[in-house]
């Protein structure tokens, strides 16, 4: 056997993990700081959590963001599943290469470009068809669905690629037509992937600042937009509290998702 994990490797990997987590832990600690001066420790306190929940601007924005994230994650899950299915299960057709390009490009496309291009599209559409009238929740949902769709498609595609295709052949052989085959066999088997794609979309939508800034209208500031406008001016203790809550919520969800996925995988094989 190779003694592959030498102390040097462990040390450098350990340094990497410290690098990943130190800022987050510092942020969480500071959120319980009594002092207004963020970096001076003034004792433990939940004061800033109270301030946070009394801040109407933040609460409103959080509500808008949650709504947008729910709708766009759901839309993206449906469209992304279709796209992933088409890419991995349908025989070659004209436009398949184009579709696969359109699905992967949004993953790396700089957000400023996506945001700008969608805004210009919405403006052009409004002057041509009168829809969407102005910009707000609808336009943000469309924009978020578009880039989240790509993430769902990639997750679903990789799950389908690892799924034993003979399962689907067996169902056909037993008399299942394409539609019932999809709903009875394929969909249940890829549902963990769709679920994790949905969760990913939800958090990505909840987190997006740049694209939302381009395509939102007045009075429709999302949570990241409010956070950004605040932290631009410096570190504020309420945002520390907000960050702690969000990180906590996401951590619980992710750990739960990983545990569920692991159990599913153990049952269903690769």
């Amino acid at each position, binding site marked *: 056997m190779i003694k592959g994990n030498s102390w040097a490797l462990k040390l450098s990997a350990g340094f990497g993990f410290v690098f990943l987590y130190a800022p987050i832990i510092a942020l969480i600690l500071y959120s319980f700081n009594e002092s207004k001066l963020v970096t001076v420790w003034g004792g433990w306190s939940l004061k800033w959590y109270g301030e946070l929940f009394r801040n109407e601007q933040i609460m409103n924005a959080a509500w808008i963001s949650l709504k947008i994230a729910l709708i766009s994650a759901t839309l993206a899950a449906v469209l992304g599943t279709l796209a992933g299915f088409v890419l991995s299960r349908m025989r070659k057709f004209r436009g398949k290469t184009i579709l696969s390009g359109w699905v992967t490009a949004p993953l790396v496309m700089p957000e400023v470009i996506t945001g700008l291009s969608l805004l210009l599209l919405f403006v052009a559409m409004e002057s041509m068809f009168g829809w969407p009238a102005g910009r707000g929740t609808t336009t943000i949902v469309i924009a978020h669905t578009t880039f989240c769709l790509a993430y769902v498609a990639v997750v679903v595609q990789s799950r389908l690629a690892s799924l034993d295709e003979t399962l689907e052949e067996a169902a056909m052989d037993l008399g299942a037509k394409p539609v019932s085959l999809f709903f009875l066999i394929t969909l249940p088997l890829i549902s963990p992937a769709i679920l994790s794609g949905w969760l990913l979309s939800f958090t990505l939508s909840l987190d997006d600042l740049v694209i939302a800034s381009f395509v939102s209208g007045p009075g429709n500031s999302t949570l990241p937009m409010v956070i950004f406008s605040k932290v631009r001016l410096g*570190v504020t203790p309420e945002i520390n509290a907000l960050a702690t809550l969000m*990180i906590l919520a996401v951590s619980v969800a992710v750990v739960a998702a990983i545990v569920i996925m692991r159990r599913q995988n153990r049952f269903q094989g690769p």
Partner: protein
Amino acid sequence: MMATSAPSDSTRLSLMQRFRALGLGRWLVIMMPMLWLAAFFFIPFLVVFKISLAEAMISVPPYSPLIEWDPNNAYATLKVTFGNYLFLFESRFYLDAYLSSLRIAGISTFFALLIGFPIAYLIARSGPTARTVLLSLVILPFWTSFLLRVYAWMALLKKNGLVNDVMMSIGLIDQPLQILQTDFAVYLGIVYTYLPFMILPLYTTLEKMDLSLIEAAQDLGAKPWRAFCLVTLPLAKPGIIAGCMLVFIPAVGEYVIPALLGGSDTLMIGRVLWDEFFLNRDWPLASAVAIVMLIVLVGPIMFMRNGNKEAL
């Protein structure tokens, strides 16, 4: 026997059924995501390109129409200007912004690889339980808010932040350093936020790699370090390419990190585009900036797609 009468009927029936089951359904399934992406991903680029050929105007929307219709003479003129592009190339400022974006993204990608590789390697070599735990630890920050993770560094890097405090208390420095609002802070921010994108593809290729290959190399007389260079590294190439591109391409157009961690002199093209659009309201010029950025990034994007095909 019964062979002669049956076939023609049954083939016709099955053809009809197959048309319904495969033809129309298949077409619908393909068209839904295809149309959505065409409308909201592809066509927007055409719109951006169109507007980049217009002139800025004080109007709603703030750019000149591409086709001008003269109602008196029933005469249409196509008004196309390359002025925005000429302006981009003539002005030192934009050229510098592009180059500095590429430099910052490149340097950050290199450091992300340097930090990410040992982590990915360690995870790939761990036992099943440790592997899941470590992998979750890498994925977890990836799920938490990008904006808040950048923000976390602001508190650490401030003049009176934790990093300066610690360095002063152990006597490394006497005066607090200006770390926030420097290029260094931007590198740090990019490496930090994009690290999971580097680690995951690296891990995927390293995990697939057969351990006995390294054993074989060592058995044939290669010292561990040489075995690593001659076997591990070449085999990890697809993962390295994918990881680097996943960091490099979005980093080039990054806005949030230079805006929060960088100084006023940190020049990045994403920030330039943002300012051009939101502060100067020069939509055509912002569009031209976007189009040129897209052209610069087409190469790396293609490279990544081909690299991915190799990896699969």
